[in-house]
């Protein structure tokens, strides 16, 4: 068992990181922590993919023409992850901007408090229009 865990160390670490991020999304009320949790999930998936592309004794895929394919790692996951990282960054920036707007409106980062305040705001709005 321990042998297998050591053998698949990257996959196991990716699973653990993913679970940490996932449970944070559920349980932590703070929005900034939720965003960090989401980033943890992102990086866990990237780590998993990059580990899939590794082959024993392979070198980085800088290939002079006519070289043997056996001596290099798999470039496909690298390309996927590379673009994924940049997209993850832009979504994170978007989440942070939304968080800032929420904070300006409700003066709180705590999701529970925000939900309560917004419910009261809705009732108030209904009353005004009625």
């Amino acid at each position: 068992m321990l042998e297998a865990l050591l053998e698949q160390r990257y996959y196991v670490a990716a699973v653990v990181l993913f679970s940490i991020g996932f449970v944070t999304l559920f349980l932590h009320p703070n929005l900034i922590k939720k965003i960090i949790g989401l980033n943890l999930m992102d990086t866990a998936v990237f780590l998993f993919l990059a580990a899939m592309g590794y082959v024993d004794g392979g070198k980085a895929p800088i290939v002079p023409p006519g070289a043997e394919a056996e001596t290099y790692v798999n470039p496909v996951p690298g390309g996927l992850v590379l673009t994924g990282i940049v997209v993850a960054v832009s979504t994170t920036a978007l989440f942070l901007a939304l968080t800032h707007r929420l904070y300006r409106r409700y003066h709180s980062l705590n999701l529970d408090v925000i939900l309560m305040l917004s419910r009261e705001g809705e009732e108030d709005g209904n009353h005004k229009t009625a």
Partner: protein
Amino acid sequence: MKRTDRTREGWYERFLRWAGGEEPDGPEGPEDPERQEFQEYLEYIDAHGYLEFGAYRLMRWKERKEKGLIPDTAPAPHHEAAKPAQPELPKRRPGRLRQQVKLYRFLSVAVTAVLAGIFLAVALALPTFGDRSAPAVNEVARRYLEQGPEETGAVNAVTGMILDYRAFDTFGESAVLFAAAASTILLLNNPRRRVRTFRGPDELTNLLGRRLLPVILLFGVYIVLNGHLSPGGGFSGGAVLGGGLILASLVLGEERMEQLLPSRRTTRVTAVCLLAYGVMKGYSFFTGGNHVGWDVPKGTPGELFSGGLILPLNICVGVIVACTMYTFYTLFLEGEEE
């Protein structure tokens, strides 16, 4: 909708000014109820430790409601009037919510544990890490590695892949970046709060930054230009360049940077680069999926001017990424008020 937003902001700004210790004047006299409430809040956090203002208001309001100080028709926090008592409120049993919260916590932990267990079982059943005969290392990777230099002209297989074989994918990624920057601009841009206060760099930033800045920018340019020859490419080099621009804004000051690189210009440059990318890669639409039939000269693999369109595409992607990172920075910096 817009109007309430504006008043809310005004309120926030006033709080910031009061927090800075500004004396009340005019209509914001000491008898201003908002100012009084704010003073109480300051005293409260001095006595009890920090609490967010929203949470504080909610707590105060609940307290007063429980004491019966305010009838149920009294205003809720933030608002002038509230509905009469909720019909469904008394129906809730007191312990009910706590139970639900407990159940929620238990369920979320259980779901995560089950998921993690499944993932772990799958991970242990996967082909061994680093195995050469794993199905992930199939003919696709072999083709990219063996034929890549001749077909794309790029020595770096990753760049050759994302900017030639899968260039449409990358076009989509760049569009996503642009869309994210655009929505962040919509969310955060506020022309009324253009005023920025910049205190000037401190000595250490000045000393280190001025020496590091050219090196970082040069390194970014190097990574972008050599994307097809060495590790890197548009995305990595663009990120380094973006970091360099942020450092430049820290060292030179935001006013100077605003003159050198106004936000209007970065948006325009990004759009132009995106269009250029689309035009350069759009010919595949006409020549078929394999872009056969219209050969861009590939050059000798390993030289700087080789790889056909990869170099200009890399420059486009690099500029898009750098501008987006810098735009994010300026947007998040705006509205600083001390």
